[in-house]
Each structure stands twice: as C-alpha cells, then as structure tokens.
C-alpha cells in the first residue's frame, strides 16, 4: 500500500472523492506518523480519537454523496486557535490547562467544510519568536538537517522557524496535510521558508481573528501552511470569510482561490524593490532572488525595479507597535478568570507573581517594552511616531501599486534556518532581524505568499516571497504556482525521527 502521508492535500481530496481511499484510512496513517514523531515536538496536544471520529463521519458523508470541500482532510491546528473542549495554551505556562468553551471562527470554518483535527501544534509563546524556542512546551525540531558538501548529514538540531514552527515542521514531516498558522511579523512565511513549505499571510481582515489568542491586533492575521501552492489555496478558501464578531473582518466575497492557481501570469508586472538588497545580504540569497526573477520573466511576467524608501524603518517601528499592542492584549492574564494563579498577599501581588511565573522571558520582555513605549511622556516619541512611520511604509506600497505593479518579489528570509540555541541568546535584536523581509507586509496589511525556491549551500530550504495588492491573493497564487513549477522540486526530508 502506498504511504498516504506523501499525498498532497489536493491528491488526498481527489482520492477520497473517487473512493480510492477512505477518510479513516487516511487519518489513521497520519495518527500513526504523529505517534512516531514525538522527537520533533511539533504537537502540544494530539487528538487522534477526535480525528478518527471526524473521519468516520466524513466517510458517511462521502458515501451519501454529500462531501464538503475539505471532507476527511486531516489538519494540524496552531495552538493559538481556541478549540472547544481541547486545551489551548498559546504555548504559555499561564494558559496551561485552559479548555476553551468556544471554537475560533477559522477552525469552525474548517470543520464546517469537513476537515478533521489531528491535534494542537507547538509555537513560540504567544507567537513571539522566530525559531520556536520560546515555547513553554519546549522547542520544535525541524525535520530538515544540514548536509555538508561531502554529503554527510549533520545531526545538529535545526529550528523550524517561528512562531508557527509546529505548523511548518508538521507539514514538512508529513504529519498532517496542512496546518493553520498565524502571522504578525512573518510567523507564517518565515517558518514556511525554513521548512520548504508554502505559507500565505492573507490581507488583514481576510480571516476572522475571533477566537485566536491576540498578540498585536492590528497586525495579526490567520493563514495556512501547506505542501503546495494549490493546497494553500484550497485551505485559505475555507479559512477566509466575513465574521461580524471581528470588527476588522472584511465583508467581501471569498473567491475560489484554487481556480487562480493555474491562471497565466503573462503580462503581470512584478516589482523588485531595491531597498531589499540589504548590505551584507548573503550571496546565496541574492542568487535565489535573481533566479526567482528569471523564472517569472520566463513565464511571461514583466520585471520592473521599484523603490520602497521607508523599508528600513519597518522592523524598528514593528518593535514598538507589536509590543505596545501585546502589552495591552496580555493584560487579561491576571490569574483570576482562567489559567495559572499564584497566590499573593493582596490582589496586586497575586497579579505580579502570576504574571512573573506564567510568562516566559521573551514575553515578559515584550510586555515591558510595550508598557514603556505607551507610558506617560513616551507615547508620542515612540508609539505615535511608529504609527506615522507605518503610514509612510503603507504609502510606499500604494505608490508602487498605483504605478501598475501587480505584485512584488523578494527573498523570504535573510538566511536559511539555523541551529537551536545559535541566535538571539545574547542580543534579542539578532533574532528580530529574521523578519526583515516579512514585517513590512504586516505593517501595510498586505497579503504575502512564500514558496520554496531552492536549497542553501548546506542543504536547507530557501524561500521566495510574493507581496500582493490588498485582497488580490489570487494573483499571488497564480505567481506562486509559476515559481513552484519552475523551481527544482524541494523533496521533503526522509524520516530520521522515528
């Protein structure tokens, strides 16, 4: 029998519809694969019984000819999405044991369309991190390993990126057919780039944030990580949609994104922003970018140099806006209504002890930065100024699009994945620089798609990023497919983790 975990989501869907395989059979393969992959630490909670029960219901639907768009498709859910009756922690000690009595809007959409849930995926604590090393439940290990020039494989543990590290690792290790993720500064796209998978952060407002644990509300957006551009398009169609419970959710129809996957890109104008050519950018990243430009040109796109002059200010401005919003959002964890509680001599002492013990180092640091930049006397100098700079960053993109550019091509990350413990232990800013190419997109609320483009000198995946106009995810899927078709096949690693 063929190994069903090797199918793409689209292939599995088609085999289920043709009744070549059953949903129970498919889900059982993934349940077994997850049980053998505990060393990757991709899941915080596994829910095999739930997946198999949902799969049985899916088989009945299929038998009756009532299959829904994702009928019987096994998914992993980032543990930032509230799932009714299943522990939801945001990878934080402060939420350990929290069982939501409600379901997030996006996961509810997935179950409505027939998907099944394999479990809750590990992440950086409260989605704050770029390596999945800040999780209270331990780091996620990437299925990828470095390969020396002589072909020897290093056993150094590699990070899957973050914050959606569990989502990216689980898809790359074939532990699910697709995963939900979230992206505040690059948390879908950077881990996708690090693991040779496809990830899309849709336009701000495309997916409801209702029931997703909040980090920075003006930047947070839900999206999928999958094996292929087509799979990501299929998932986004189910995840997206208007939700009156999220005031920033936009009421525009959700297109059938899969239709866009095979569309021609002839005549599309692709902007190449000169400001992304950073000083000291590694040669292999420059070469990958040049290769991506060549692939799109060969597929019929027109390449145009553009300028996004405020690019370099995006990352510092992000590290004011995001912590400021986080400090406000995370004020709710007080040890009274849910989660961890440490007793104190009075209520203030209870708060301070609970939050000191419940939040990890990176989260405490960001809450404190956010508190400082919002405090009396500093608000104008920091927060207000950062929001003005955000207007300038958005204006750069608006001008490029107004001049006829359809999408922008950039590298996804300034480097391939690194080893556990290799970055950011002395200086937090070193880790923050991972998001230099992705964070502008959140600051401007735009859609961004990452597809694998090649391998680094040490055999790790590298990604290309396409940035689109608001609500033109379809263009990104068409362009992404063109890159996917042109790029050498990035074969996901074979298991060493059993």
């Amino acid at each position, binding site marked *: 029998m063929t190994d069903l975990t090797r199918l793409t989501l689209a292939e599995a869907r088609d085999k289920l519809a043709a009744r070549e395989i059953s949903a129970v059979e498919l889900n059982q393969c993934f349940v077994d694969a997850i049980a053998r992959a505990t060393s990757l630490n991709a899941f915080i909670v596994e829910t095999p019984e739930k997946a198999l029960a949902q799969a049985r219901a899916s088989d009945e639907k299929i038998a009756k000819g009532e299959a829904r768009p994702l009928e019987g498709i096994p998914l992993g859910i980032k543990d930032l999405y509230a799932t009714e009756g299943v522990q939801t922690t945001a990878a934080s000690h402060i939420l350990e044991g929290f069982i939501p*009595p409600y379901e997030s809007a996006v996961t509810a959409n997935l179950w409505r369309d027939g998907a099944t849930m394999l479990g809750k995926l590990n992440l950086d604590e409260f989605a704050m991190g770029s390596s999945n090393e800040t999780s209270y439940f331990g780091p996620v290990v990437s299925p990828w390993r470095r390969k020396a020039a002589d072909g020897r494989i290093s056993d150094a543990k590699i990070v899957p990126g973050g914050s959606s590290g569990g989502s990216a690792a689980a898809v790359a290790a074939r532990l699910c057919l697709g995963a939900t993720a979230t992206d505040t500064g690059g948390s879908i796209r950077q881990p996708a780039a690090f693991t040779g998978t496809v990830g899309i952060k849709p336009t701000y407002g495309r997916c409801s944030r209702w029931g997703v644990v909040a980090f920075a509300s003006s930047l947070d957006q839900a999206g999928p990580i999958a094996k292929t551009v087509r799979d990501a398009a299929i998932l986004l169609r189910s995840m997206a949609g208007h939700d009156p419970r999220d005031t920033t959710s936009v009421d525009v129809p959700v297109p059938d994104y899969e239709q866009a996957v095979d569309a021609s890109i002839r005549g599309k104008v692709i902007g190449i922003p000169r400001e992304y050519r950073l000083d000291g950018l590694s040669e292999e990243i420059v070469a990958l970018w040049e290769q991506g430009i060549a692939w799109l040109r060969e597929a019929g796109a027109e390449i145009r140099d553009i300028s996004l002059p405020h690019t370099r200010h995006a990352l510092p401005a992000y590290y004011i806006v995001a912590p400021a919003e986080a400090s406000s959002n995370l004020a709710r964890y007080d*040890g009274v209504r849910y989660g961890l509680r440490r007793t104190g001599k009075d209520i203030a002492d209870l708060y301070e002890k609970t939050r000191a013990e419940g939040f990890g180092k990176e989260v405490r640091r960001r809450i404190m930065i956010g508190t400082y930049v919002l405090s009396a006397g500093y608000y104008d100098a920091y927060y*207000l100024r950062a929001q003005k700079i955000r207007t300038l960053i958005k204006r750069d993109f608006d001008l490029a699009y107004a001049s006829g550019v359809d999408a922008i091509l950039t590298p996804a990350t300034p480097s391939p994945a690194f080893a556990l413990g290799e970055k950011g232990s002395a200086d937090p800013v070193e880790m923050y620089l991972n998001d230099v190419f992705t964070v502008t997109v959140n600051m401007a609320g735009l859609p961004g798609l990452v597809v694998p483009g090649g391998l680094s000198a040490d055999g790790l995946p590298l990604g290309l990023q396409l940035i689109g106009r608001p609500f033109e995810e379809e263009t990104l899927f068409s362009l992404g497919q063109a890159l996917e078709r042109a790029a050498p096949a990035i074969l996901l690693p074979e298991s060493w983790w059993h």
Partner: protein
Amino acid sequence: MSVDLATVRRIAHLARISVSEAEAPYLQSEINAILSFVEELSAVDVEGVEPMTSVLPMRMKKRADEITDGFIPEKVLANAPAREDGFFVVPKVIE
C-alpha cells in the same frame, strides 16, 4: 534613550510583573538594546504624516446596543482557578 534600573522597576510594576533584584540588570540591558535598535526612528521626518489607525480604508463596524450573549455562568467560570457560589475568588481587596 535608555532606561535606568529604577525605570525598569517602575515599568515592571506598571506591567504587573514582579522582577527580582538579580533579574533587573539583565532586563535593563535587553530593554536598552531594543531601545537603541528603534532609536533611528527619531531621525525620520514625520512632519504632517497622519498616524495609521487602520491598514485598510474601512469604517469601524458598529452593532446595535443590545444583549446578544449571556446566561452562561458555568462556561464563564469553567476555567477559573478559584470560584465560589458563581463568583471568581480574589484576595480581600477592601479591609
């Protein structure tokens, strides 16, 4: 701009996070590293630029001022670390 130890303690209290004496100097240097990273923003000309309030040109949706939810005390209290007679329990606030 940079922060001194007294400011670190003040921020910690504002954020309701207790910080030990041993931890404070490390936090101070980490916070200062981040503040020096964002320092370049003070040189950007933002004269006449409106601060961003929404990335998309959209009007904030409003809903009718009516009760749409409620009567679920069990669900609200289900995850409480301490509860009694349908209430959350906290240390004595008023003497």
